[in-house]
C-alpha cells in the first residue's frame, strides 16, 4: 500500500481526506496507532506496578494508621523473618508446584489422545469441550467444589458406600480444586505441542526398536517440554496469586489471603510488599519458562 492513492480533493468527506493525509506520513500513522495502547499499558499498568513497588517501602504508622512515605525495608524484614510469612510462603510455593505437576500428569493422556489418536472430527469436538469449561466462571467452579467436598456433598455420598471419605475442606481438597481449575490451561498447550511432533520421528523411533515407553521418554517428552513449560506458567501463576479458592475451600492461609487481609484497612504497604513476592517468583518463573522455549508455544 505504497503508491497510487488518488490525491484527496476538497469535495471528499473529511474522514477520507484525513486518511489520504495520513497515508503520506507512515510514522505519524504508527504513532496514532500506538499512542493509546502504549499509554494505557505502559503508563497505567507498568506505572501501577512501580507505584506498588514504591508503596512496599513505605510504612504504616501504628498509632495514626496513616501511611508515612519514608523509605524503609521494615516490611521486607518482617516478611523474611516472621515465622507466619515464611510458613505461608513455603506452603503457597509447595501448592503451586504440586498443582503444576498434577495437571501435567493428568493433561498428558487426554492431550495425547486429542493430538495423535482421535479423528479430526473428534479432535475438533474435544478442543471445544476442553476450551468451554476453561472460560466458564472460575468463581462458580471453585464454589461448586465447596458443595462437592462438603460433609453432605456429592463426593462423600459417592464414597460413603465404599466406606471411604473425601478429603473434605482441607489442603488436600484445595489441591484437588486447584488441579481441577487449571487443568484446561495445561491440556491446550500440551495438545498443541504434541500435535506439532512430526509423525516421522515416532516412526523412526519405532523402527530403531524403541518401545512405547522408550519413545515416550526419549522422543515425545523432550519435544513437549516447551509446551509443558507454557502450560505451567498458567498453573503456577494462577495458584500463586489465588485467594478466592482458598477462602472458599479451606481456612488455611495462602499468600493471597495474607495480601487480601492486609489490603483492606490494616497495612497497605505490607500488603504491597507481600504482593511483590508472587511478582518476583513469577518473573523468575517466566525467565525459566522462556529458556525452556515456552514463549514459542503459547
Amino acid at each position, binding site marked *: 500500500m505504497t503508491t497510487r492513492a488518488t490525491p484527496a480533493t476538497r469535495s471528499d468527506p473529511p474522514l477520507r481526506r484525513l486518511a489520504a493525509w495520513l497515508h503520506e506520513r507512515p510514522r505519524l500513522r504508527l504513532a496514532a496507532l500506538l499512542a493509546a495502547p502504549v499509554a494505557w499499558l505502559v503508563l497505567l499498568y507498568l506505572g501501577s506496578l512501580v507505584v506498588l513497588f514504591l508503596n512496599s517501602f513505605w510504612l504504616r504508622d501504628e498509632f495514626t494508621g496513616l501511611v508515612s512515605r519514608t523509605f524503609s525495608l521494615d516490611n521486607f524484614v518482617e516478611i523474611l523473618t516472621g515465622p507466619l510469612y515464611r510458613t505461608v510462603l513455603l506452603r503457597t510455593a509447595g501448592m503451586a508446584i504440586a498443582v503444576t505437576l498434577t495437571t501435567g500428569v493428568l493433561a498428558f493422556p487426554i492431550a495425547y489422545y486429542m493430538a495423535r489418536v482421535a479423528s479430526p472430527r473428534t479432535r475438533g469436538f474435544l478442543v471445544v469441550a476442553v476450551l468451554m469449561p476453561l472460560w466458564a466462571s*472460575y468463581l462458580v467452579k471453585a464454589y461448586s467444589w465447596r458443595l462437592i467436598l462438603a460433609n*453432605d456433598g456429592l463426593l462423600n455420598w459417592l464414597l460413603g458406600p465404599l466406606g471411604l471419605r473425601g478429603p473434605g475442606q482441607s489442603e488436600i481438597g484445595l489441591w484437588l480444586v486447584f488441579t481441577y481449575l487449571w*487443568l484446561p490451561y495445561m491440556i491446550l498447550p500440551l495438545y498443541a505441542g504434541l500435535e506439532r511432533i512430526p509423525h516421522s520421528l515416532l516412526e523412526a523411533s519405532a523402527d530403531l526398536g524403541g518401545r512405547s515407553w522408550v519413545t515416550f521418554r526419549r522422543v515425545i517428552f523432550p519435544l513437549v517440554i516447551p509446551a509443558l513449560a507454557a502450560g505451567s506458567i498458567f498453573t503456577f501463576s494462577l495458584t500463586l496469586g489465588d485467594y478466592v479458592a482458598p477462602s472458599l475451600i479451606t481456612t488455611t492461609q495462602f499468600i493471597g489471603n495474607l495480601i487480601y487481609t492486609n489490603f483492606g484497612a490494616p497495612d497497605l504497604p505490607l500488603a504491597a510488599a507481600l504482593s511483590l513476592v508472587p511478582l518476583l517468583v513469577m518473573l523468575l518463573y517466566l525467565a525459566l519458562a522462556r529458556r525452556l522455549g515456552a514463549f514459542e508455544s503459547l
Partner: protein
Amino acid sequence: MRSGGARWGLRLATLAVLGFIYIPLAVVIVYAFNASGTVSWPPAGFSLRWVQAALENSGLQDAFKTSIVIGIGAAAIAVILGSLAAFAVARYRFFGREAISFVVVFPIALPGIVTGMALSTTFATVDLPLGILSIIVGHATFCVVLVYNNVIARLRRTSRSLEEASSDLGADTWQTFRHVTLPAVRSAVLAGALLAFALSFDEVIVTIFTAGGVTTLPIWIFRSFRLANQVALVNVAGLAAILLSVIPVYIASRLTQDTGGVTGAKT
C-alpha cells in the same frame, strides 16, 4: 502407544478427564433447579422456585446488570486498544515492537492479585474513587490481550498483497481500509470482544481490589456463598455466570474457527 490396549487406555483416560472437567459444572446447574433450599446431595427434586426467587431478588438483579455494564465497557476499551496495537505490530517495523507483544500479555501472565494490588494502590495514590469506572479500567487492562491476539492472528493470515492490490486498483487508504482490511478482521475483532466480555463478566480476583462498594455478580456470589439463606440463590447466580461466559466464548470460537486465538490467554 500403537497397541489396542494403549488406545483404549487413552480413550478411558480422556473420558475420565472430561468427566472430571464437567461434573462440577453440572453440579451447580442441578442445584440451581433443586427443590430444597439446602445443598446436601442428592437434591430433593426439580423446582423452579429458586430461579423465581433469583428473578425477584433486587440485589442479585443489580449485581447482574452491573456486571453486564462493566463487561461491555471493558470489552469496548479492549477492542480499541487491542486492535490499534495489533495493527501497529502486524503492519509496521519499529523499535520496541517485540516489547509491545510482551507488555500486552503481561497483565494476564502475572498473578491476578498483583494486578489487583497494583491498580488499587495506584487508584488510592491518585485519589481516583473506586467504583464501576475503576473496575472497567482494571478489566480492560487484562482484556486487551484477547482482542490483540485474535486480531493479530487474523492480520498475519491476511496477505498484505490484498491491500496493495486494492491500492493499485485506485482505492485510497480509506477505501482500502473500509472494503478490504475491515471485512478481513471484523470477525476477529468481534471474537476478541466476546472473549473480553466473558472474561470481564466472571472476573473476581482483580475486581475485589478495584470495586470499592460496587457489587458485581461474582462479588455478590463471593459475599453470599456463606449465608445459609442465600445459598440456593447462589446456585442460580452461578448458572447465570456460567451461561454468560460460555455462550460468548462458544460464538467467539465459531467466529475464529481455528481456536488459536482463544487458547492460552486467560488468567
